[in-house]
C-alpha cells in the first residue's frame, strides 16, 4: 500500500481501521480521497455501518420460560441468604 491511490479492495480491508479511528493520518487521507471519488466504496462503508447499527438494535430476547423460572428461583434463594 505504498502508492498514493488506494484500490477499492484495499478500502474494504481498511474500513474497520477507518471507522475505529486507527489509520495513520496519511492512510486516513488516502482513504478519504478514495471515498470522495468512489461511490461504490461510499456505499460499502454505509453497509458496514448499517451492519454494525443493526447488530446494536437487535431486540432483547427473554430466555425460555423454564430457564427464567429457574433463574428467578435462584434469585429468591439468594435473597434469603
Amino acid at each position, binding site marked *: 500500500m505504498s502508492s498514493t491511490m488506494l484500490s477499492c479492495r484495499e478500502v474494504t480491508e481498511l474500513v474497520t481501521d477507518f471507522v475505529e479511528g486507527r489509520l495513520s493520518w496519511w492512510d486516513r487521507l488516502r482513504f478519504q480521497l478514495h471515498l470522495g471519488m468512489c461511490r461504490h466504496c461510499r*456505499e460499502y462503508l454505509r453497509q458496514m455501518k448499517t451492519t454494525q447499527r443493526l447488530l446494536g438494535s*437487535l431486540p432483547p430476547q427473554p430466555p425460555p420460560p423454564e430457564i427464567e423460572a429457574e433463574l428467578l428461583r*435462584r434469585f429468591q434463594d439468594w435473597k434469603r441468604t
Partner: protein
Amino acid sequence: MAADDITVSRLRAGDEDAFRDLVARYHVHLLRFARTFVANPATAEEVVQETWVAVLKGLDRFEGRSSLKSWIYSILANRARTRAVRDGRMMLFSEMASVSDEDGPAVDPSRFNAAGYWDQPPRPWDDFSPERLAASAQIRARLDAALEELPEAQRAVVVLRDVEACSSEEACNILGISETNQRVLLHRGRSRLRRALEPLMGSGGTER
C-alpha cells in the same frame, strides 16, 4: 453509569423485576458469548446460570468502576474459561484468533478487477432505519444465524463491540487480547455479517 446504579440498588434491595429485566436484556447474548469458550450448549447454559448467581453474590463488591455490562461479561468470561479448563477443552483465545487467520478477505476477490477496483460493486441497500430493519423478522433471523456461523473469536468480539456496544478497551479487557487483535477479529466478523445480509438488503437483490 446512572442507570447501572439504579439497577444495582434495586437488585440489592431484592427487586425481582429488576432481575427479570436484566436477564431478559442479557441472557441470550451471554449464552452466545459463552459458547465461544464451551462448545456444548447445555454446558454453556449452565455456565451462564452460574454467572447470574455469581453476579448476585458479587453485587456488594460492584463499585461501578466498570459498567455493569462489562462486569457481567468479565465474570462470564472467567467462569467459562475455568469450565473449559476443567473439561479439558481449553483453547487460548489467541489461538482461536489465529485459527481464523484463514478466514480470507472481507469481500470475494472475484468482485474486483485485476487492479483491485470494483467489478461487481455492492448494490445500494434500501434506506431503512435500523429500528425498521431490526423489526424485520427475516433480517433478524438472518443476522442471528450469521452470528452463530461466525468463527468463535470473531463472534465474541462482535457480540461485545456491536451487539453490546462495549468500547474496544472493555472488549480487550474482557477477552484478554490486544487492541490490534481485537480490531482484526472485529473487521473479519463485521465483513462476514455484511456479506450475509447482502442478499436481503438491496431492492434489486444481490449481484451474485
